[in-house]
């Protein structure tokens, strides 16, 4: 299996990016964006999570099976959230 060794330099780059993104998300919270504030916050969070999954958790260098598991997990979480929220979004009285 994956014995791909990532250089510490890359890890250092990732952690610095993560720190910058954290600062950006805090800053963005103080900018008036209306309903887009939450969207920006979640996009940045997803960006950070993706970096952690791909590099710290080595998924980028892992076999297809691991990638499939990750995608399946995200997909099912999406099902739960999307299909439930679809009900709330289409209620005429809510």
């Amino acid at each position, binding site marked *: 299996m994956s014995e791909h060794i990532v250089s510490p330099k890359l890890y250092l780059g990732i952690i610095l990016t993560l720190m910058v993104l954290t600062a950006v998300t805090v800053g963005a919270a103080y900018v008036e964006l209306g309903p887009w504030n939450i969207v920006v916050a979640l996009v940045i969070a997803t960006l950070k999570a993706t970096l952690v999954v791909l590099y710290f958790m080595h998924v980028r260098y892992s076999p297809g*099976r691991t990638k499939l598991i990750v995608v*399946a*997990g995200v997909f*099912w979480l999406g*099902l*739960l959230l999307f*299909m*439930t929220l*679809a*009900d*709330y*979004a*289409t*209620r*005429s009285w*809510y």
Partner: protein
Amino acid sequence: MSATESRPAEQFPEKHYLNADYGIRSWLLTTDHKRIALLYLVSVTFFFFIGGIFAGMIRLHLLTPKGALVSPEVYNRLFTMHGVAMIFFFLIPAIPAVLGNFFMPLMIGAKDLAFPKINLLSWYLYMIGGGLALFSFMSGGLDTGWTFYTPLSSVYSNSAVAPAVLGIFINGFSSILTGLNFLVTVHTMRAPGMTWFRLPMFVWANYATSIIMILGTPVVATTLALAGMERLFHLGFFNPQLGGDPVLFQHLFWFYSHPAVYIMILPAMGVISEIIPTFSRKPLFGYKVMAAASLAIAVIGFLVWAHHMFVAGQSTYAALAFSFLTMLVAVPSAIKTFNWTATMYRGSISFETPMIYAFGFLGLFLVGGLTGLFLGTLGVDIHVHDTYFIVAHFHYIMVGGAVMGYMGGLHYWWPKISGRMYPDTLARFSAVVLFIGFNLTFFPQFLMGYAGMPRRYHSYPPEFQVLNILSTAGATVLAVGYILPIIYLLWSLRYGPVAGRNPWPSTGLEWQTDSPPPTENFHVTPTVTWEAYDFENRPDLGLDKPLKTDDSGRGHD
């Protein structure tokens, strides 16, 4: 019964997993998947009879329109505890944890599951969860319905909700760990030559079931934890008075609990897919399609949950979408049913006990499945929602389907588990009794439900009495069908004739080893060179010998 006439007589193996070690410690601390399966066998049977006693009391109570036995409050507790015991502590673990645990490693040629200690941990979690549920039953009972709908469960109920919820929460982790163990086992523990498309269908079925277990169960754990905290600390996640939403609970609950129906039925389908080729002496029709259908049921099963909530106040558009998606599940289920029938077509069918259960399964699952389509249709559901029509429908699936599959599997593999045969005539008789009793119990419930008798009421208008009496009479017959197997299976442990390695005979790897198998399953790690259910190219099975039907009724040897 003459088990071995046309082939050399087989001896009972000297050393096997049952006598490998003695004493209570050797059972309670075992990591052998076969012994853990037997621990599960004993414990799920226990819960089955607990649930059965509640069922018997419900049926007795409903003999008269005003209720013959208990007060309304106690009646609420009876049907709730019946549901909780049967669903969470019998149906969900029954086939995977007993038959799957025992046979998956044998069928793929592995020495054990990938994580034997976690397997034992699963059983302990199950026992702790079951213990808490029993505690709840005995300390005030439980009256919320097995669905624990809020705010009844979180605010108004005066029964022991908290321990039951905690018990089911803990039991959920047993289920998750079993699913995890199975998935990893199928991926990494297969014997040389056991490719994915040589796996027996029972393995595929358990694989699909495990997917549901690991993706669905965590959600119900969260849900019940939130409901439990809401009850204990007066929070309001699901309470409109405090800003929450009760329909949210139903979404979260059914996200797991609808797929949970497939946790019950998929392994039963797997069992049937083993039994039918064996007793038709023909390869399973459409192997790859069957495997794909199992996975499709597991996936589509996650897309239909809100059909339980058509009248609960969700949006009309969501209801429409869920109604449509519900129809989709019928497709892989129908494919499976067609393929089983096609497997039997021009087969050399013999009517041993497991096959009779399989026939029972086919008929009952068909009725249960088709009535499911009625209920998935929005307009019809509004008419029959919360009536006995629903009760009959899901008993046809869960008892007619899952329990028939479980009984069939138990009879099919009993010679391997115990090394001995049970009395065949008696067993076939009892399978027929079960089938008749089941239909007598639940078919009248379709009629009452369609005529409008609501479920979960302790009394009913007098015009329903005839049907209710029929149903109660059927339940009595059904009980005989469940008690008889216990007696003759236990009898066979001591007095049954030696079964030999492959009594039916069947093509699976599990039949290549001793009965009962040694602790390490196979004396030498097997190498698989044949396709699944390939009866034609297997001279070792002795199928070329002429068919002989003696009064034991078994076609071969």
